[in-house]
């Protein structure tokens, strides 16, 4: 009963202020908990492992590609292009709205079916709404002579893979 007596005999105003304190404590920590839960939810929602094909693509041996040839690998959505200077890889995804572009040999350019963007063989935009040229992808030769393309790393244009 000691509790009771104390509270009964307590001065109203400091009683009130104590209540005020506890209320603030309660609501405050609930607020914090809510905030924490938000960040917790964010952490939870961002996956730690992905079930996606690896960004590194094995494009096979060099001699599969003739000089001045443009080869589209629809699965990994990249162009494998061999020119005099060597090899380079472009993404086949249009920089406008992500449609899959197509190589038009008769025109000698890369065309996007969706909104008519046109790119030349080096990826520079020739026409259409596309905001950026097609990015060049990092390309190298593996130990056993296969051409490897990393779709996740973009390199500045005109860096050819010399053979």
């Amino acid at each position, binding site marked *: 009963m000691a*509790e*009771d007596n104390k509270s009964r005999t307590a001065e109203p105003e400091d009683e009130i202020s104590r*209540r005020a*304190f506890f*209320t*603030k404590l309660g609501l405050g*920590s609930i607020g914090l908990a809510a905030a924490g839960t938000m960040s917790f939810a964010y952490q939870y929602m961002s996956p730690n492992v992905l079930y996606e094909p690896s960004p590194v693509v094995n494009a096979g041996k060099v001699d599969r590609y003739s000089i001045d040839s443009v080869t589209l690998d629809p699965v990994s959505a990249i162009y494998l292009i061999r020119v005099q200077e060597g090899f380079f890889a472009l993404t086949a995804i249009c920089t406008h709205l992500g449609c899959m572009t197509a190589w038009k040999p008769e025109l000698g350019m890369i065309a996007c079916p969706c909104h008519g963007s046109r790119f030349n063989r080096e990826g520079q935009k020739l026409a259409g709404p596309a905001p950026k040229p097609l990015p060049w992808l990092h390309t190298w030769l593996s130990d056993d002579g296969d051409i490897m393309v990393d779709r996740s790393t973009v390199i500045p244009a005109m860096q050819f893979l010399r053979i």
Partner: protein
Amino acid sequence: MQASNKIRLSWRALFRDPIRPFGVASLFLLMAFAIAPAKDHFSEWRHYQNAYLRLIHDRSDAGTLQRHFRPGIQQIWLPEAGVVDRCKTCHEGMAEAGLVDVKTQPFGKHPPIPHSLTEFGCVVCHRGQGVATTVAEAHDSTLAPEEPLLPARYMEASCGQCHHEALSGTPKLNQGRVMLARYGCVHCHTVKLPDGSTMMPSDEPPPLTHIAEKTSREWIYAWLKNPQSYSATATMPNFLLSDDDARDISAFLIANSAASGAAHAVLVAATATRTADPSAGASLYGESFCASCHATQNAAGDVVGGDLGPELTGIGTKVKPEWLRSWLRNPHEYAPGTSMPQYRWTDQQLDLLTGFLAAKSNSDFTANVHLDPATPEQIAHGRKLVAEYGCAVCHEIRGIRKPDNFAPELSRIGSKPLAQLVFTSGMNQTLPDYLAAKIQHPRDFGPGLRMPQYTFTSPQVDALSTALLSLTDRSFTMPQQWQVASPKRSNYQPAGHAGKLMADLNCQACHRMNGRGGDMAPDLSAEGSSVHRQWLNQFLANPNTLRPALIRRMPRFNLTDTERAELTDYIMTAYQIPGIDPDAVSDSGSSPALVEQGRQIFYSKYACQGCHMVDPKQDKGYVGPPLTTVGSRLTAAWIDAWLKNPQALRPGTIEPNRDMSDDDARALTAFLMAQKGSGKQEAKR
């Protein structure tokens, strides 16, 4: 009362004015919410990644290692194989060549293997639970289909999931597979392989249809009681029969035996010779090279000889002389399927050999076996036991049909869930230990079990366990691109009359032809294109050995000239291989200069004398066959082709491929073709 009063008071204190407890409770709530993510943050794998970073931090190659290091959970995902491996999360240095000196797990470098780690993942070979990111769950989870880690000693089993042929890197697995076939495991246990085929036994359990002609009931009894006490190399396991059971089974087998077609000459002569001249018998035994297949115990007490046929140390105790004689005369009459060749011995030779063998007895084996005449009940009970123990699975027994899948199928034993295993008390509760124990002490796993007792050494048990552990579920669901074509099984039989002759001689017991046959003697598939007809004919008449280093030699069959001619013709015509054109290289008559040049490179450039001998006086080469008479034996075309690429003609031969130029090859061929001096003499003889 006091207590309850207190409780009531405290509750009142709590609920009189909710604000205060509300505040406090909210604070605790906040703390509680803080715990969960914290626990998640201090996870095992983070601890190991930090430890790894500390490890590589002050190495000289730290830069490279840190560049390769990927924080967070690492995973190898192979959808077609159903593999999700997160082992690399902790085993960060797995593929780091620089860490070869690091012994502390989980950071060591993976030892070199013929496969890429990322291409096959970890669990395919090591098992364990790939998805797990905690040590305990990853390594010793036992929930099917997650299995505990496969101990290193059985690792070869993992190779066996895809590779069904013998690999040079997996001796243990190969041995285990051979044992499965040789010790009759696959007689009772069906083992289906992913390619749809079934594992075939390689042993030859004798038919018991006419056993009464062959041996005595006493011997059967003693043998049943303990086969290994008759001969240590016996492949028949011990069924741990009680005296009565052994008695009844022997009674049944004798009673059940029927007369075979074999004609049994009464062996007056033999009994005479047995006492007469053992040394003659011994020499005949020797020059017939029986020891190539049959072992005997020598004076020193160690068993020497081949293991293709049964050990003959105590044969005299085992078989009746008249049976032995008729068997030696023509084994096929008694056991049509046997691989014992039909030597064409003369009656006198037969007597000698019979006498010699009949004298090889350890009479104390059956010494203290005394059996009363069998009663019908015993015979009936014997029949019951024979059916019960599945004797008919291996042996052909009159009136008892071979039971189908007599014992549990083992096609997927390698991934049997622990939940389905029944362990004996006190044993390690793992699948490998279960298999080992089951092989060593089958009867410990409960009364009424019929699996017999084998006498295996612990390496043999390891090998068998390894072979069994390779029979997994996964091996049946391997992705297409991983499957390795298992070796072709051929059931080639020589055709025609010569074929019949070769069947009688059981050439294929030792020689492989067109993919079928033993590996004791050279593969004859290319014989026709490699040797001279005349030489072959001579050889069949008197098979002198090509390789003095070998114990095993071709026995001499008393072939008639017509038989030899027939055989020679057949071999010369049937066993040709394409690409060897006899006319391409001149068989004889090359210029002496060329021969001399050949001699030069033979001795200097290629130093063939290291392994071969041409001139017995100076050469001592002992690895390859002597080439003193090679000219009269081999065709020039064959020698030429052989020199250029031996492995193409005989895969796996140890003669190294020297990529010889055509000129060198021609010169050497000329030189070797010139080596036929002794050959001529032989031809004359």
